[in-house]
């Protein structure tokens, strides 16, 4: 399962999938990782991702990876959320929002939710640009070099790597037949 997921990621990176979709998936995964789950806002963002053409698999992988680092960011996110939620200028708006139907279900009044949302939105664009540039660079320069390198040739003899290569082949075959 895990190997297949890695294989799909490698296939995606090497296939014709639009780098913009992959980058959108990575950035959205970051946003969902920073936002605590279990509230309406997270569900809405997840559905948006589900319905959009952002690469879903890449978003899940990205979310899983960033989720591991999320506890370390909890302190700054909490502080950011606390500052924003208690900002005197924004207080009337938040108070009005808190009184509206449905809005409290987003748990926007939680410091981690607000902090995570703001940080996710701010980091979305840099993450998107970085991921898009990374995918293009990978396809143009890194992938051919890796494929022809002695290290990869040697690694292919390792059972785990050979299993991964087979998985990649299978994934590519599935992708090809689908095409």
């Amino acid at each position: 399962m895990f190997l297949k997921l890695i294989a799909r990621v490698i296939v995606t990176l090497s296939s014709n999938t639009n780098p913009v979709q992959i980058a959108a998936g990575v950035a959205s995964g970051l946003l969902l990782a920073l936002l605590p789950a279990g509230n309406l806002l997270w569900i809405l963002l997840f559905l948006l991702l589900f319905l959009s053409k952002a690469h879903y698999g890449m978003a899940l992988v990205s979310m899983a990876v960033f989720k591991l680092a999320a506890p370390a960011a909890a302190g700054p996110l909490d502080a950011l959320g606390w500052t924003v939620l208690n900002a005197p200028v924004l207080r009337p708006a938040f108070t009005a929002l808190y009184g509206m139907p449905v809005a409290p279900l987003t748990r926007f009044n939680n410091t981690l939710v607000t902090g995570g949302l703001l940080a996710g939105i701010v980091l979305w664009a840099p993450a998107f640009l970085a991921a898009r540039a990374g995918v293009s660079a990978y396809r143009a320069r890194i992938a051919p070099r890796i494929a022809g390198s002695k290290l990869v040739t040697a690694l292919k003899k390792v059972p785990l790597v050979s299993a991964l290569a087979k998985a990649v082949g299978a994934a590519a075959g599935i992708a090809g037949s689908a095409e």
Partner: protein
Amino acid sequence: MDKNAKKPASNATGDKAARAAAKAEAKSVRSAAAAAKSAAKEAKANRGYVKAGPLLGLVLLAAGLAVFGIFFMNPLLESGAEAGLEAAFGARATVEGLRFRPFRMRLSVGSVAVADAASPMTDLFRAGRLEFRLSPSAVLRGKVYIEEASAASVELGAPRSTSGALPGAAEPEPRQKRPAPEIPALVDWEAFDAQALLEREKAKLAAPAAYEAAGRSYARSVEEWKGRRETSSAAVEKARASSTAALAIDVKAIRTAGEAAQALAVVKAAAGDVQSVGTEAKAVAEGIRKDTAALDRQAKEARDTADRDAAYLKSLVTPGSGAARAALEPALRSLLTDKGETWLYYGGRFLEAASRLKGSGGGAAGADKAGGKPAFRGRDVVFPGAAFPRFRLGLLTSSFKAGDSAWYVEVREVSTEPDLVPAPSSLKIEIRRGGSLVRADARADLRESAGGSWEASLSAAHLPLDLGDSLAGAGLSGLTGILEGTSEVRGVRDGGFSASLEAEVRNPVVAAPSGTLGKTAADALRDAGAVNLTAEYRVVPGGKDSFVLRTDLDRIIAGAVDAAGRRYAAQASRELDAALRRYIDGELEGKLAPKKDFDSLFKAAEGDAASAASLEKSLDGKRAEIEARSKALGADLLKGVTVPKIGP
């Protein structure tokens, strides 16, 4: 040209190669076309921003969730409600027949039973069919606001067939059953026996303990001083013996200055010894004198206590002295507190549940729920405009019949954040039975501004009162009447409370009076037509409870027995006084026996001190004599000697 003529070999090979090349080219073109087709298909798929497939999947998922909700929502809500009640009351809860109609915002429950955490084999309460009307506006804000609820029936303290303790819960401490009060029997004057009354009341008298304590103090002081006095006395005797030689010196026999100096040295040495011994003897006598004052005070207190005991015993035979109240107070207190404690117990359990519910809330507006320390789950900032607590029960009413009583129960404003609710929590209970009505109205203000105070008022009208055999010891067995009264209870969160009661027992009738006073009191009560009583009960956490009862029973009884009672009482009082004096002289005064030892010790110590002082005085006299003799001898030697003149 012959068509079948054989072509040259070189031409054949070239054709073959050309065909292969054409074939390869065609394959390459096909491959390129397929790739182009694939790329075109992928490009087409990449166009737009929404995927049709996932959208369809989402619709199917929503349909699946709806089906799941229809079949599994109610059992899930039932489990959730049970978990919530168990958390609030700390005991097992059972919710049966829950049905939620989300579009009408109605919830109905077949029955609810919550066990008593302090008594797991009974239910704290059990409710029949419940109907709830939820606020859609609150639900859309993620809150639960039960605007109105009704229960078909409510039952308190019903027994359970299985234990209601939660798994892993600590064993509850059994409720302490108050021991039956000891009611002092009123005296029957016609068969009065002073000695018997004294024997009966002996355990309550304070004098024996006071005499015992005083005797012990004397004995302890004797023990403390005896050794030191003996040592001091021995030292005085020794000093006396050693001074004999000094005192025996014949001053007239001293002829020379040398002899005088030698005699003076002997006397001075003896005087030094006597002085130190005398100081110790005086210190011992002074110490014992100081103890004497304290010990005599204690002995006097013991005798005063005996006088107070005598007054107490006489009060038992004196009408209007409070004896009737003293006899009735424990029984009435027990009766009132037993009934009151049952109400207070249930009130306390619900107050505890309300406090737990409050503790589970989000806190006050703008408050830092995590207490300032950033938590991983973040902090909830509650904005002041929020109109809904996380949970709020606006009104729960129940009107039902239990036996021949009609009950009405009303609960208002129970919430997780009382500060967001405009009124305090309240509980109203009315019980009608025949022509009687009992009404209880309790309010618990758990808002921060109110400091968690609570109050309750209880009123009873035309309530039949039957004390049964509660006052049998006072000769008033089977006292019945009609109770009219009100009670106010006020308390704070830490457990302290004060209660006051004003009541009137109308038409009091004693079914089986006994004893002189019991019979007289029964007649007096019947003639009086009513007994008024007021009571105050104050409980201080960690302190001593106080109960004060005021009643006109004494006045009624004293008035009725005045003429006959005083004659009896005077005689009984004299007999009782005599019996008590015999008891004090015969048994208690003997406990002060160590006083004699102490007194003789004191006298002996004073004797030692006097003896040492006398010896010291004698030695001082002897020294003066020797010094005078020495001066005289010196003067004789200088006679006839001319002293040369010094100076110009």
